[in-house]
């Protein structure tokens, strides 16, 4: 195994340990709920960043797959014929198929037109959810709760177990995405982002690559939706509304799109902001808006990207200083 992969595994193990220990140290249920939201939204934002940051495809309709995962998982569990892992696999496969069909149409379009068509498909799915009341419950959402029968000795109806399950799934998904991020496929996607014409000349099938990452990102988003459905024990039409995709984009922008974990940091920031701002003021939008403006106009990139650039700049000045210092010493001796 390569050294980098080992390092990633080590970091993942530490992160998982921290996630699992946190609720033990601070046993308030509010913290656990907060962390589950960060996990679900963070996973959604991370999956979207495979398109936005890695491939340069700005999708405005990514929440469609989040909703598709949540609804198909919820409906399968309510049917009573499936165990939790089986329903998860089926929901993931179903969403992957959906993303394949929609993606095959969308990836042919460029720039803002790609954004608009993904938005159109998402809102189309939102309308179907609202209209097909018999199955989806319309604007009331999927009612009656989602049963969580125990499997392999894991009982998800216990809040602690559910949290640990979410944390493990989250870390596993991050590791998978990290592999993609560092793989030759990931570097091909970066080339497509920076210069599609050159990628094409080099014999890369640009459309197929884009479609591949579109399906993968959609599948990961549906995993986030499944976790959310498990946690809130339901699925709601808002999952497929454009504001959900919007929030995912803001998490990416706040956290940073060029650093792998940037979107998770953004999800954490946005959830914290939402949480504290609503406690202290009723003018939630005003404060949130001003903070976003300050970050965008002040840093001009996400927090993690800013930190990376700052560290890089510091390293260069240090190296330059060291280079200057060396000849000076020689001259003295």
């Amino acid at each position, binding site marked *: 195994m390569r050294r980098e992969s080992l390092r990633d595994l080590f970091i993942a193990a530490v992160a998982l340990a921290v996630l699992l220990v946190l609720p033990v140290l601070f046993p308030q249920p509010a913290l656990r709920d907060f962390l589950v939201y960060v996990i679900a939204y963070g996973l959604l934002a991370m999956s979207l960043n495979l398109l936005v940051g890695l491939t340069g495809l*700005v999708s405005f309709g990514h929440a469609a797959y989040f909703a598709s995962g949540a609804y198909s998982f919820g409906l399968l569990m309510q049917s009573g014929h499936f165990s939790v892992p089986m329903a998860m696999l089926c929901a993931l496969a179903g969403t992957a198929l959906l993303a394949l069909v929609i993606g095959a149409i969308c990836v042919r379009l460029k720039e803002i*037109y790609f*954004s608009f068509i993904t938005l159109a498909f998402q809102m189309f799915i939102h309308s*179907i959810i609202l209209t097909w009341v018999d199955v989806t419950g319309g604007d009331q959402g999927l009612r009656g709760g989602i049963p969580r029968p125990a499997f392999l000795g894991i009982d998800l109806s216990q809040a602690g177990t559910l949290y640990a399950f979410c944390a493990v799934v989250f870390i596993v998904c991050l590791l998978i995405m990290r592999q993609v991020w560092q793989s030759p496929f990931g570097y091909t996607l970066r080339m497509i982002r920076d210069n599609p014409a050159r990628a094409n000349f080099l014999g890369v099938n640009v459309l197929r690559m884009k479609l591949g990452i579109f399906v993968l990102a959609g599948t990961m988003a549906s995993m986030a939706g499944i976790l959310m459905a498990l946690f809130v024990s339901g699925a709601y039409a808002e999952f497929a509304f454009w504001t959900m995709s*919007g929030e995912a*984009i803001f998490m990416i922008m706040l956290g940073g799109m060029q650093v792998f974990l940037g979107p998770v940091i953004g999800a954490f920031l946005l959830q914290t902001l939402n949480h504290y701002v609503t406690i202290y003021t009723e003018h939630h939008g005003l404060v949130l*808006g001003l903070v*976003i*403006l300050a970050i965008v106009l002040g840093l001009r990139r996400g927090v993690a990207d800013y930190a990376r650039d700052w560290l890089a700049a510091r390293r260069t000045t240090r190296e330059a200083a060291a280079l200057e210092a060396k000849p000076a010493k020689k001259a003295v001796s």
Partner: protein
Amino acid sequence: MNLEVLAGCLASGACVVTQISSGLIVGMLLFLVASGLSLIFGVLGIVNFAHGAFYMAGAYFALLAYEQTASFTAALAFGALAAGVIGVAFERFIMSRVYGHDVLMQLLVCYAAILIFDDLVKILFGADYKLMGMPDAFATAPIQIAGGFVPSYYIFMLVMALAAGLGLWLGINKTRIGKIIRALAINPQMVGALGINTKLLYAGVFGLGCVLAGLAGALAAPVRSLTPGMGLSVLIESFIVTVIGGMGSIPGALVAALLIGLTRSFGAIGFPLFVDGLMFGLMALVLVVRPSGLLGAKAS
């Protein structure tokens, strides 16, 4: 789905007239908002995701002026102008700082602006529904056309919107300043090199787009209830209109706005829950078949 009701409506002249007239005014409001959006995109090359906020500003300032002066003409003028002034300030102080950055930066700035504007409206005007009421001049019996009733205010709205659209088209295509604006859209460096203040012109075009949105808001004030989030649904629909008509095309915006307006008014009878789905389906279809829109310039 309630297709029998829709068929029944189509068979009756009165129902058709009523639905067409309500479809036309929805379409006209959308046309005003979307033509501003389209103008800004065509000239500045940016997508103003905060455009709905100026529609809202137009409506609220029109209400304010109407309550103070009781003159509807003053309300229209003040609503449109206030939206324009706020638009110019927004462009100069905030939006112009993210020109040349990727579209996501602009999106985030606009989202922040929407959050701030919505909350400011809540602070200044209150969070509850507001009604302006029909101005006295239009408080007359509706006009009867082929058995259907059309309020006289609808006719006024139609004329105002068409006049504004025609004025915009003539201004862009037939005047000297319009020629400069068209040149600005194609080659801003060259226009700047010829000694024209492009920054001022950008702010002016952005402001003009916001005036159109503000006018739409002011015109809508007597027939719609005013809420702090009223800009968002208009924004989404005017995006559909801009995309279907072609980004940057004013006549395209008119055709698409009428199409969407009529789809809404007749769809509301036949399949009320799926109207949005139909509109977005139409948008996806246009994007697939002709990404540049019905009347947009062919993308290179």
